[in-house]
């Protein structure tokens, strides 16, 4: 038996070193360009199709005006038209509703995901309500909440609650039971387990719920602002439609979509920040 120094036992050739870092910078730049191209390529293609679809005869531009007209209407609407004011009003409504859905949905979901009794108690009613369109229940909402901001915010809240709630319950039930056991043997009470194990463990799913919910909140603006409103981006969509002001209608739709996109990426960004442990170093 012999003990030997591994490296010394070999005749080394310098050529054996793989040049892993050569050209790294150039490659990175190329990669970035490719990245942007894939990320926005389809989007740009879509925009071009829209813009030129009418001119090339694919689309009826009396009903779907070219993108440039829509952008012009959007700019006008935001600079001097109704959309400037509408934007603030709608964001407030959607924001309050989404905030309430978050503040109620996450804790409720955590409780329902953890306590079978609570779930059994609330679930049937919740499931029943979840199945009920806010659109259909307008008369009821107006009766109970009036025509003012409350009913609009509530309609939005109602629809955006369920994605958060269901995702949170799902996330909680997916949390590794072994970690909960660990916390229990260290004497953690229910609330501490929630806060320190269940909540962080369910975070990725909760964020899926938040993203669905934020979208829902913005989409529900249209339904919520169909009644008793005279302002709001959602109101503009329907009102412009009724009056056949098509560029303004599309401008409002695009504005809502952009808001949704912004919310989506903002929430994704927040998630990345919160879940740094998942990707750090």
């Amino acid at each position, binding site marked *: 038996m012999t003990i030997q120094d591994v490296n010394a036992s070999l005749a080394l050739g310098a050529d054996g070193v793989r040049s892993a870092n050569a050209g790294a910078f150039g490659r990175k730049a190329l990669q970035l360009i490719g990245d942007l191209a894939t990320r926005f390529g389809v989007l740009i293609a879509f925009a071009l199709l829209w813009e030129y679809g009418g001119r090339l005869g694919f689309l009826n531009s009396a009903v779907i005006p070219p993108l440039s007209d829509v952008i012009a209407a959007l700019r006008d609407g935001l600079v001097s038209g109704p959309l400037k004011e509408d934007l603030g009003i709608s964001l407030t409504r959607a924001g309050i509703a989404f905030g309430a859905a978050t503040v109620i949905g996450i804790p409720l979901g955590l409780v329902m995901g953890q306590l079978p009794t609570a779930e059994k108690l609330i679930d049937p009613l919740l499931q029943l309500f979840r199945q009920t369109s806010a659109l259909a229940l307008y008369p009821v909402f107006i009766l109970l909440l009036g025509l003012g901001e409350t009913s609009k915010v509530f309609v939005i809240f109602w629809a955006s609650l369920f994605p958060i709630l269901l995702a949170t319950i799902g996330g909680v039930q997916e949390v590794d039971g072994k970690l909960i056991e660990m916390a229990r*043997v260290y*004497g953690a009470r229910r609330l501490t387990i929630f806060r320190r194990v269940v909540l*962080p463990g369910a*975070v990725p799913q909760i964020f899926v719920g938040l993203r669905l919910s934020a979208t829902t909140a913005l989409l529900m603006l249209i339904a919520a602002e169909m009644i008793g409103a005279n302002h709001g981006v959602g109101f503009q969509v329907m009102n412009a439609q009724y009056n056949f002001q098509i560029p303004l209608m599309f401008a409002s739709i695009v504005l809502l979509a952009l808001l949704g996109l912004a919310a989506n990426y903002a929430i994704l960004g927040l998630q990345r920040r919160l879940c740094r*442990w998942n990707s*750090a170093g």
Partner: protein
Amino acid sequence: MSATQAALRGEVSIRRLSKAFTLNDRRLDVLKGLNLDIRSGECLVIVGASGSGKTTLLRILAGLESADAGEVDIDGRPVDGVGAERAVIFQEPRLLPWLTVLENVTFGLDIRGWPKGEAKAEARHYIELVGLADFADAYPRQLSGGMAQRVGIARALTVKPEILLLDEPLGALDAMTKIAMQQELSRIWREEKVTMILVTHDLEEAIYLADRVLVLPSNKAQPPRLIDVDLPRPRERSSADFVALREELLAEFGLH
């Protein structure tokens, strides 16, 4: 022999403990009428073949699993769920992936309401003790298997329980680190007068640490066996008595 004096901390009394699992309609007896008294401050080591019920027994003692029949009393009170006087080191590290090593180790102290600063200082002490001072800010996924296991050990030690339940805590460690950790466990056990119940596959480790060794049989028709280890401490692994006892234990396992 069963104690009702409150003065005794960390005394465990097991009476006619039975536990079976159902596995695809087949009944699987894991523990069958186990009787055992563990003295306050004793070090009991449990050995036995894979699947012989060591983890199950430990989980029942921890209050994580309920028995089918029988009683477990701790300091005269029946066990009902987990309790702050017990701490467990699981067979897997069970670290919270979103916390750093330091945060994971303070976890138990946080729950006991320690002030942040003191908890950190205490945690750092035990992190150093398990040799991970350089990795206090690392996340679990950045650790090697043995490092993660040591974090789990550090976490359990911080809370200074009356009864420490350890499930193969040193299984993923190299010989040297393992010996160092055995010495540490032995020292902590002696100084803190904690009752230690430890599962291991390493018979040397068993003899090094144990007052008594409980051998769980695979065949539940056989009764479990208890082996007294009355060697003087500190124990010398190469001493004749040590080696002889090791041979005896191996024989108990059907080896040699």
